[in-house]
């Protein structure tokens, strides 16, 4: 029976590891019952989407050791893919059946550009929102990791690449809407369900994607490939000597992370009702790093909660006049303190506290047991 015993204890461990994830998702799903305010719910959905984005960074940074300072690139690509499809749906309504999106008309574009054409199909757009970021990341990863670029240089390359794409999007105003982005979108509609940004359906769509992306990320970190990726993070050359194709695993985790970020980007467009070049800007990219570090880069749930908490607090405080100005200062200080004293973030703090509690209890019950045996001995 020993093998049976190990599998059941393995299962127990799996459940214990999944517990925080499932608890968080249960809270996320039950929030609409407590919050009877559509505007608030929309705001929460926004933070949840940012949580998904941060989980995607945690996957490549915390587990893969790849600090991507251009994570918002994948997010932005996903967001634009969704926005292009939703914009084309407004065309027959606003500018006639053979018309063009309004900003193209203002910019004297005569025909719909070829790369807009396939976005008439929503399923194409959704596939593109996942696959394009993954492909771009795979290409960039192939370029970097095959050349054994590591550490700081990865960060600089990813940052620079994102800035280039951002510049191009702003510059090509007639095809991308430039600075203004793509605004005035139609509602997303899947199988007859309309996703109004302020409706419950959209919230549950986001919540479902939170669960999905956390589960996918969790499954990856527990898979063999995920373990190898973590081994590469800790001892790259050793893993290479064992005969593994290090670059291939790095490329894979990089692309997977980009696909999840692309999903988050698509949801963001649905929730915000527009796409903007700031979605793939330096500011957002660095904010994601902050959220991830504060929550705990080596914990998926930690990264998610870090984003929801910090972005949520930021949103709440920046709306109150008293903290409008000081909030950024507070955030900077908080961030420096976390980097200095909590390298594993809030998740690390929670784990340490939990371990301390367990040890205290074990010590206490041990003392009780000793006390019992002593009294037994004396009788």
């Amino acid at each position, binding site marked *: 029976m020993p093998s049976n015993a190990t599998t059941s204890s393995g299962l127990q461990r799996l459940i214990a590891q999944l517990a925080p994830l499932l608890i968080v998702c249960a809270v996320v799903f039950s929030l609409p019952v407590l919050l009877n305010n559509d505007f608030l719910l929309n705001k929460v959905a926004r933070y949840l989407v940012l949580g998904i984005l941060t989980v995607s960074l945690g996957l490549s940074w915390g587990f893969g050791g790849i600090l991507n300072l251009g994570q918002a690139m994948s997010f932005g690509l996903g967001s634009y893919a969704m926005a292009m499809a939703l914009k084309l749906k407004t065309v027959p309504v606003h500018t006639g059946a053979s018309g063009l999106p309004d900003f193209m008309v203002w910019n004297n574009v005569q025909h719909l550009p070829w790369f807009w054409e396939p976005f008439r199909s929503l399923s194409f757009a959704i596939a593109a929102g996942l696959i394009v970021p993954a492909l771009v990341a795979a290409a960039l990863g192939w370029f970097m990791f095959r050349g054994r670029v590591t550490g*700081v*240089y990865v960060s600089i390359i990813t940052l620079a690449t994102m800035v*280039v794409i951002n510049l191009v999007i702003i510059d090509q105003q007639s095809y991308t809407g430039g600075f203004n982005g793509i605004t005035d979108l139609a509602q997303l509609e899947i199988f007859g369900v309309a996703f109004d940004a302020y409706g419950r359906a959209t919230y549950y769509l986001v919540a479902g994607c939170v669960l999905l992306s956390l589960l996918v990320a969790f499954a990856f970190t527990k898979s063999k490939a995920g373990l190898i990726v973590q081994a590469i993070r800790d001892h790259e050359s050793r893993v290479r000597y064992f005969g593994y194709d290090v670059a291939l695993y790095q490329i894979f985790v990089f692309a997977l992370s980009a696909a999840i970020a692309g999903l988050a980007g698509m949801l963001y467009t649905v929730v915000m009702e527009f796409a903007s070049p700031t979605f793939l800007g330096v500011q957002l990219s660095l904010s994601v790093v902050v959220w991830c570090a504060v929550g705990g880069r080596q914990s998926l749930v930690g990264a998610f909660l870090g984003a929801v908490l910090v972005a949520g607090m930021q949103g709440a405080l920046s709306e109150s006049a008293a903290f409008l100005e000081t909030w*950024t200062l507070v955030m*900077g200080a908080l*961030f420096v303190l976390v980097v200095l004293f909590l390298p594993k973030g809030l998740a690390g703090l929670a784990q340490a506290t939990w371990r301390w509690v367990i040890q205290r209890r074990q010590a206490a019950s041990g003392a009780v047991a000793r006390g019992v045996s002593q009294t037994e001995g004396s009788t």
Partner: protein
Amino acid sequence: MDQFIEQIVTGLSIGSILLLVALGLSIIYGSMGIINLAHGEFVMLGAYAAWVFHTYLGLGLLASLVPIFLVVAAFGWVIERYVLSLLNNRPLDTILATWGVGIMLQQAVRLMVGSELRYVQLPPALSDSMDVLGIPISSYRVFLFGVSIALFGATWLLMNRTTVGMKLRAIIQDRSVAASFGINAKRVYALTFAYGAGLAGLAGALVSPLKSVSPDMGTGYVVDAFMVVVLGGVQSLAGTVASAFILGELSGGIAFLQNDTVAKAIVLLAIVVLIRFRPEGLFTARVRA
């Protein structure tokens, strides 16, 4: 022909500003391995210091250069001493910490002096233009070119001809051996970081008459300066000079042919490709391990 020369001179002028900003960054990165994302904020502090010295003390730009260097260097010293020195052997975390420090500095300035744009006057002695090869060029830009070269020279001397520089190079080679010879690495690091910050402050003060001064003015500079440092090679001061002027000429030249955005994108992409194939930079010889 005239246009061609004008283009080259514009490139030189962009290059000398790039060099000013990148010099401090290069020392900090090359000797301490710290990616200082607060560097742009040191530039911004220098620019504000110039404005403060002018409006409240009536000091001209040239007269306030030394105090500005000292003030910003003091900021650098405090930050190294109380934040970065706690992050030994965690180079990626220094990116995060310096970024946090950067947004704090930005917001602190915004709180204290407001976010409206400020302007610093050109020094009266340098406000006219002079004739270079038959083309009128503002004297101030010629002055900037001279200052950036002079600062480079001073830095080179400091690194190669002084005791502090020698100690710093010893620490870079092998910190523990240097420490066993009685070199106080902590102090040398703090001084190095302070010097780098002071240089950034000078850069900010010197560009302040050319551009408006605002709390977020540093962000643009830091990315450009990084590109200079990476292109030049991390531990090569001469490489930093060469790459600053190459990038200056490149962005000047491409901007002339195309537009500004395309120029920026092409330069960035070129650097991405360069890092991939020569992470040690264009101008460093490969060292035998």
